[in-house]
């Protein structure tokens, strides 16, 4: 049996009295693309932030390549983080830097690469996501939402990471641009051979990029299985979610 790329065992996280993660168990195998679906506020982003060490879980353990990373800090944390790339929901580009400096940031600051070499790699990665050399010296605020997502994707793959996280990659894009981004994600992931974890509530996107889907509800994984089985899950929560019905077992907490 191979070591899972990422494993979460009984991860719990609460903010004050509000329990966000209530014992998450999740395994992602090497080269696999797992998509976590779930409504807004069910803890999808918190799960990702716990794995990255941006948030600390209250209980449970997290493993990356079989090594426990739940409580590591400083250099050990940096070493683990070098395996990761991440595309943020709003792209989270640094608005004080140009497009190419954004893409090259992890290479220059995180790995100490020279600026000229890093710039060449940035141009190459930008070309991979369909952006030409005319944008490299622009500032992120001069780009459209779809182009910002592309730059964010180029930044996520710049250092050829083993693992890439996608936080709502298609949110805020029109359906055509969303599909283009989905295609880019599938292509770039195949290209670098990375393991990916995505979170989304866009089912079209989930069906396109996932090998396996897991559904998060009230801080727990209530269903997981291959993408082909999502329509026959036999789980009323999953059925309600994938068909986007207001009626069903999931009660939206309209009042937070």
């Amino acid at each position, binding site marked *: 049996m191979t070591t899972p790329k990422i494993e979460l065992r009984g991860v719990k996280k609460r903010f004050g009295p509000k329990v966000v993660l209530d014992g998450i168990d999740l395994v992602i195998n090497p080269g696999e693309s797992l998509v976590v679906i779930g409504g807004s506020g069910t803890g999808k982003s918190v799960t990702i*932030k716990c794995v*990255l*060490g*941006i948030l600390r879980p209250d209980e449970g353990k997290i493993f990356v390549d079989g090594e426990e990373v739940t409580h590591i800090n400083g250099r050990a944390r*940096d070493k683990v*983080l*070098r395996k*990761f*790339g*991440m595309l*943020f*929901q*709003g792209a*989270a*580009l*640094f*608005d004080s830097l140009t497009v190419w400096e954004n893409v090259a*940031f*992890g290479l220059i*600051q*995180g*790995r100490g690469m020279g600026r000229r070499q890093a710039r060449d790699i940035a141009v190459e990665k930008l070309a991979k996501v369909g952006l030409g050399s005319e944008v490299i010296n622009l500032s992120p605020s001069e780009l459209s939402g779809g182009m910002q997502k592309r730059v964010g994707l180029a*930044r996520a793959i710049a250092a050829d990471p083993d693992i890439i*996280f996608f936080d709502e990659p298609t949110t805020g894009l029109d359906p055509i641009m969303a599909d283009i981004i989905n295609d880019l994600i599938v292509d770039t992931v195949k290209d670098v051979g990375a393991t990916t974890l995505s979170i989304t509530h866009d089912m079209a996107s989930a069906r396109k990029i996932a090998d396996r889907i897991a559904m998060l509800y009230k801080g727990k994984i209530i269903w997981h299985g291959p993408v082909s089985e999502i329509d026959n899950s036999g789980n009323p929560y999953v059925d309600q979610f994938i068909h986007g019905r207001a009626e069903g077992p999931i009660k939206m907490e309209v009042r937070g």
Partner: protein
Amino acid sequence: MNIFAPVGRAFFTLLAQIGRLTMFLVEVVSSCFRPPIYWYHIGQQMMRIGYFSLPVVGLTAFFTGGALALQIYLGGNRYGAEAIVPQIVVLGITRELGPVIAGLMVAGRVAAAIAAEIGTMRVTEQIDALTTLATNPIKYLVVPRLIAAVVTMPILVAIGDSIGVMGGYIVSTQSLGFSSGIYLKNTLDFMKNEDVISGLYKAAAFGFIIALMGCYNGFNSKGGAQGVGAATTNAVVTASILILAANYFLTSILFAK
């Protein structure tokens, strides 16, 4: 209705704030001494915090010195002591008004700018993005601003002191009938090194407070535009109050003899 409940809640909230600020402070100060140090960013922040604050600090110092000279002249006039203007102006500016007014002006300008910038980076996940790119946001964002503020505030205040004394000199010689030579001689004879140096110590402390409050409030801002707005306001208010409080305690320590 229990009146003790809200009081107790406010008290515990305050304690939690102080605890969070202390933890932030410890992390920031320990990061100042561990590589990597971003020299380029320190230089950039010195320009933004120090150099670009020069007009504001210079103008306020000039008018403060001028108003001080007028007041002392009018007040001294009541018992025939109007000749003491140069001595009081230089003492008041170097010991108190120079550092405090520069501190408050820079708090308004710089603490607000830092909180708004870092707060926006927080709510748009740019700070999380730094972490995922294996860059410590405290070292990358906070340490350069803190070092730059501590280094440039004394320089700003030294320049502000000179301009403030010049403001008093111009008002005194142009409209109060002081002779230029006597005014300058009285100023220089009366002023001691410790008057100026104590003001510069204060300036460094105020620079620390300004950068710390700007960064802390920015780092902990929540929500969207409103959260960043609240962080900016809090940064300026807390920095200003802490500057005035620190000024009192520093004065009592520096001149305790």
